[in-house]
């Protein structure tokens, strides 16, 4: 008997401990929701959370996204349902530890209605489950790793959706370009161990093989490596037609520069990807960047949504420069989607308090469709809300001041 009692108490204690942070059914005002209700008193702001990379070599990616959200708020007059709009931004440093800290901070604020971000899959991978455990939906703006919206993703990712494409589509498109347009038959892929690069290199390689090409080897470097000569010498012995390296700025610039010094590789094109679309890439590679091609979503005005030219105008007016990266439109669309969702599910009582059911919000977001600035927004059941429009850009000048997406690098395909 005493055993049963002890076990019962222990079980209850464990349940109490683990249950403290878990969400539960709640009724506030006119709204009942299985995972919780957020009540916003009259006049209080609706608080969005945001987490992107705001410092370091990849910060253009995060600052650009935050600007997109700010413009979306401004277009709404800075208000939603009579409440002022507010965004609390955390720096996720584009890595897993940063993502975890950022998400924990945002989840600890009981008034966080919804979270936008990240721009890095390595940050979103640990962050999304932390947020969903607190009942908060997360809309990704540039985190493109396939696993985040895969059909077999774990239930803790149920609260994650994104208004950017999945690398499944980019990998397929890149393979098509390399096989079809560059007529390459044998390639080598290089990743840097990050979820983004690793998954993209894998998806691209698989598609390339399906088309009939050969992946001679899958190489890897560390993001902090500087001496690429040995790995490139090894690659040179395989005589590839193309080297596909979807990595980031520092290691990417080293590969680019050093590949030209290796006998047998001087004429083999190196193809990069979205992680290297930044002025810092030109700064790091200088003259050797001329002629370097990267695959990237098509962000030319013709390929984007109808509202895109207006967004760019506003961007220039507000921040005094052309967009510094390519994902501000995805972030704008994420903010837009979030606001539409809140408008749809929120209920306001006679005292002016607004109530938002947390699960109802997630469910509503998955059903909303609209014409976004980066293209149509329509989510599948696993939170994939945007499609990839492939393009290839080529750098034309080694001066970092000339960086402007569309001019340097300029679009060369399709």
């Amino acid at each position, binding site marked *: 008997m005493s055993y049963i009692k002890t076990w019962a108490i222990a079980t209850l204690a464990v349940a109490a401990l683990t249950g403290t942070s878990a969400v539960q059914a709640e009724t506030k005002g006119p709204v009942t929701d299985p995972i919780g209700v957020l009540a916003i008193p009259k006049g209080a702001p609706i608080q969005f959370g945001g987490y992107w990379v705001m410092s370091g070599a990849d910060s253009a990616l995060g600052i650009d996204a935050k600007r997109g959200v700010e413009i979306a708020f401004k277009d709404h007059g800075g208000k939603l349902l009579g409440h002022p709009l507010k965004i609390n931004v955390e720096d996720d440093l584009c890595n897993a530890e940063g993502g975890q800290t950022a998400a924990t901070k945002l989840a600890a604020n009981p008034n966080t209605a919804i979270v936008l971000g990240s721009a890095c899959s390595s940050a979103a991978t640990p962050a999304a489950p932390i947020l969903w455990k607190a009942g908060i939906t997360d809309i990704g703006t540039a985190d493109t790793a396939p696993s985040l919206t895969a059909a077999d993703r774990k239930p803790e990712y149920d609260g994650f959706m994104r208004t950017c494409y999945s690398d499944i589509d980019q990998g397929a498109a890149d393979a098509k370009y390399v096989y079809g347009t560059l007529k390459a038959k044998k390639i080598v892929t290089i990743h840097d161990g990050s979820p983004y690069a690793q998954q993209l290199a894998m998806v691209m390689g698989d598609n390339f093989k399906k088309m009939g090409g050969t992946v001679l080897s899958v190489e890897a470097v560390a993001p902090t490596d500087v001496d690429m000569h040995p790995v490139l*010498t*090894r690659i040179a012995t395989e005589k590839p037609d193309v080297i596909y390296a979807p990595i980031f700025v520092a290691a990417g610039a*080293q590969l680019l520069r050093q590949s030209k010094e290796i006998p047998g590789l001087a004429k083999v094109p190196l193809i990069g990807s979205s992680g290297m679309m930044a002025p810092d890439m030109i700064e790091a590679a*200088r003259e*050797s960047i001329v002629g370097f091609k990267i695959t990237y979503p098509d962000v030319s005005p013709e390929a984007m949504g109808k509202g895109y030219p207006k967004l760019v105008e506003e961007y220039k007016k507000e921040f005094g420069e052309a967009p510094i990266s390519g994902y501000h439109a995805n972030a704008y669309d994420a903010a837009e989607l979030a606001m539409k969702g809140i408008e749809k599910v929120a209920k306001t009582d006679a005292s002016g308090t607004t109530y938002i059911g947390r699960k109802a919000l997630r469910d509503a977001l998955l059903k909303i469709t609209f014409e976004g600035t980066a293209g149509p927004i329509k989510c599948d059941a696993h939170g994939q809300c945007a499609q990839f429009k492939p393009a290839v850009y080529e750098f034309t000048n080694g001066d970092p001041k000339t960086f402007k997406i569309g001019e340097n690098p300029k679009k060369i395909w399709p």
Partner: protein
Amino acid sequence: MRQPNPEDARAGRSMIPRLSSLARFTFVDVILWALRIGVVFVVVGGTIGTLLKGRYGAAQWFDFLVFGLTIGSVYALIALGYTMVYGVLRLINFAHGDIMMTGAFAGYYVASTFAENGMLDRSPVLAMVIILVVAVATSTTIAVLTERIAYRPFRHVRGFAPLICAIGVSFFLEQTFRGALGASIRAYPDPKWQHEMIDVFGFGVPRVEALVVIAAIVSMIVLYLVVQRTRMGTAMRAVSEDTDAAAMMGIDVNKVVVFTFALGGIMAGIAGVCYAFVFKQVYFFMGFTPGIKAFGAAVLGGIGSVPGAMLGGFFLGLVESIGPALFLDGIGIPAPYQLRDLIAFTLLIMVLIFRPYGILGERMAKKRA
């Protein structure tokens, strides 16, 4: 009382150590032996496998050798700073990699000015000398200031405080440069003459790599002569042997310590310029990884030993460059260069297991601890 039989005693004497050494054979020893056998297996099996596959020709092996010597000479130059400071002060100067960074940054500004006004192409020798002088002056000044401001107050403090202070200095230098000059990666100028190939035993070697190796070897010889043949060098060795006795003999220990830091700073400045001209990127965090590797090289060669640091640096560079292709390719490990650091540090651990005092190190533990 029966006298002990001398035969028994002899037998006993010879039996006891054998039995006790068997009894002392713990599971840690088993694991260490397994590790040794595993490493020997990978090295021998991998080498045979790679050579049988015949994937790399003589030209490739020669290239690996040159790449290894190039990065190895940078490691060696940095390792000298670690080893000299350790020899004199028993302090691991963790900021030494960052002192290399300060030299590389100073050199960057001069080099890019020279690249813009064409001097780097017009009179490359003069330009390189000026770049080197500025870089060396900067890193030496910072090394000496670091000693005066951060390390001297801790000199007689026991425990971990000096080490923690060294780590603090490392962060301070990194973040100061980040705050003042920005976090972006900058590219060193890339004049054409550096890429021209020179002929070595019938193989082509880029001029810049040959230059780096030669510069490193020359500076090391000069440093060795300074330490061995000059009065100041003799004083340095005396302080390293026994600080108190040296002080009693009238040696100004403060002067010797400053001299040691200055020598380390000079080597770091040369290393910074060599590194930057081969790898072409400078940024605030660039000193960290080479710093850690060079520290490993200094330990590998025997920390406190000047020739040991040189040998350790070259050895580490060669293992990093040749190791993955030679050992891992043969046993069919994909993407072997991802495991470059693993090989380098496994080697370090192996050396520490077999020879805790390093390749050329003396048995300091017994003499001084």
